[in-house]
């Protein structure tokens, strides 16, 4: 079976160079697609089901880390999760983080020798990888270490001020069941209603009490006091049942460990 790879890189010359260098180090590897942004990376990976994914970190649309996170949330079916190799330009912090997370990464400018080592590891992984979910489990561990944690803000938010028509509603945070990111807005959901605020979810998260509010996917933060139960379906996906709301938000595999039994 020919190993298949997808390259996600926004700079065309760098994408071509990576493909060229890979062709030298690993002639039998087939590059199934080369995409220029993080959104296309997820769509193409879902459609083409490659064995290996080269993800640039800084890409338009969404970063390589965000793309990996979204892919982990949306990946379904019998094919094993692709092995992810992050591609990054010089950036001290990121490189250290990759080392700590034991993630595979290559540095730009790509050196053939360094890429050769990665390829050697990848060959072993691709041929020996039989059991499903190993790649995903590994990636989830890496993402937990790599995804930027919102720095805890000194200012703890106690009341959400949300405009509803001409009225500004004052919502005590403890009444919020969950926050949901909607494009430029965040939907604040309480037992008796919803309101939109214009604050990015990440910024909001930094101002919330981390013991009470837990992020469960890229776009949703729930109030743990309002979580009634977490149920695993046939595909292994975790869903939450909430007090006072009919919605059953899905927990991303990245955050599923927060809802395991003790």
């Amino acid at each position: 079976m020919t190993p298949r790879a997808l390259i996600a890189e926004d700079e065309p010359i760098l994408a071509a160079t990576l493909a060229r260098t890979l062709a030298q180090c690993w002639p039998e590897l087939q590059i199934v697609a080369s995409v220029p942004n993080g959104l296309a990376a997820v769509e193409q990976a879902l459609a083409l089901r490659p064995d290996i994914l080269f993800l640039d970190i800084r890409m338009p649309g969404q970063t390589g880390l965000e793309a990996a996170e979204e892919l982990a949330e949306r990946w379904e079916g019998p094919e094993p999760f692709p092995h992810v190799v992050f591609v990054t330009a010089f950036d001290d912090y990121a490189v250290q983080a990759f080392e700590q997370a034991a993630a595979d990464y290559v540095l730009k400018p790509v050196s053939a020798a360094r890429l050769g080592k990665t390829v050697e590891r990848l060959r072993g992984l691709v041929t020996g990888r039989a059991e499903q979910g190993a790649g995903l489990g590994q990636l989830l561990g890496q993402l937990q270490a790599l995804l930027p944690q919102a720095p805890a803000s000194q200012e703890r938010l106690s009341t959400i001020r949300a405009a509803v028509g001409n009225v500004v509603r004052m919502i005590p945070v403890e009444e919020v069941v969950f926050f949901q990111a909607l494009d430029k807005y965040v939907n604040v959901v309480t037992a008796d209603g919803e309101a939109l605020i214009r604050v990015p979810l990440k910024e909001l998260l930094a101002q919330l009490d981390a013991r009470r509010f837990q992020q469960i996917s890229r776009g949703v933060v729930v109030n743990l006091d309002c979580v009634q139960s977490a149920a695993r379906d046939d595909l292994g996906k975790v869903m939450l049942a909430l007090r006072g709301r009919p919605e059953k938000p899905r927990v991303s595999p990245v955050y599923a460990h927060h809802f395991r039994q003790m």
Partner: protein
Amino acid sequence: MDLFRIVLLGTMDHIVVTFAKRVCMPTAASSTTIITPPRSGLRRALAELPLTVVVSTLLAALITLVIGKPEVFLENLLFSVMIGAVAFVLLNGARLLFWDLPVWSWRQWVPFLALAVVVAPIAHFTGTSVAGLLLDIRTPTLSEYPSRASASMILFTLGGTSIMTVLLRHRERLRRSEAEHAAARLRAEVQERQALQAQLRLMQAQIEPHMLFNTLANLQGLIAIDPERAGEMLDQLIQYLRATLSVSRAEQTTLEEEFNAMRAYLGLMGVRMGERLAYRLELPPALRSARLPTMLLQPLVENAIVHGLEPKVDGGEVAIAARVDDGRLRITVCDTGLGLDQPHSRRGSGVGVATTRERLDGLYGPRAALDITPAQPHGTLVRLTLPLETA
């Protein structure tokens, strides 16, 4: 005689001050004055003792010259020094105790001179008595003291102490102004350091490692794929680095040079971003030699790319234009990128703008302006207004 005395006093002042400066004030003291704690009273009082000896010596020489007997110079010298020493201890002690102020007005001068008048006979009498004892010469006792001869000598002593006082005040002023100079020098040094740090910040903000390494990665790729284009790209990188790094040397540049640097930068970004980036530069020939501070445009253009176009999936266009409006130079940087309030735009956009504002404010004050508004239908419009300066 009066004229002679004035000339003599003037010369003496000069000699004494020069001498005193050399002997009593090591040069290092001037630069450390503001750092070392104030000198103790005793040390300050004694610091002026050599000056007294010098003045006394000169007065003894004067007397010797006036009476025309060179053989009694040494005797005169001892008398003079003794009188001077007593007068010095009394007057300088009183000065440091009661009138220790940096600036003297008549409130200080009048009582001090009154004291000098009182001190003169005391110093003269005590000084002559001590010197007489030492030299075994009979001097007038207290009952014999009030006489015509004593009166003239008291007047002479008063003259001497007055000279001393003037010299002391003069030296103190000198010392103080030197301390002030040293403080000013220190302030200037601190300011210079701060300016250098600001410049360094500016440079660090410009040559972002991420940008440099990505450009090198592209260059490495092009060398294998298209060597000719790699050569062009290398030229542009050199031009960009030269413009960016020379900021520490030159403070001003011309619009033509600045536009060339921007063209090089956009050329580099054009290779990197491919079809996602389009750019336009419009510089009327008449404005080519207009002068402006170095690196003023660069942070603004880089913001348009890094925060506006690079993170946008479809990319877009950046247009840079210069024109004269109402006698002032107006430069616009307009991009069709993500725009100002985008949660997806990358962090740190404030640094370049804040640094540019700081620089403009420091250089031109209210004569320059930088305003940033949303562009229509999307993107960001930056308008820079400067006084028009042509070489």
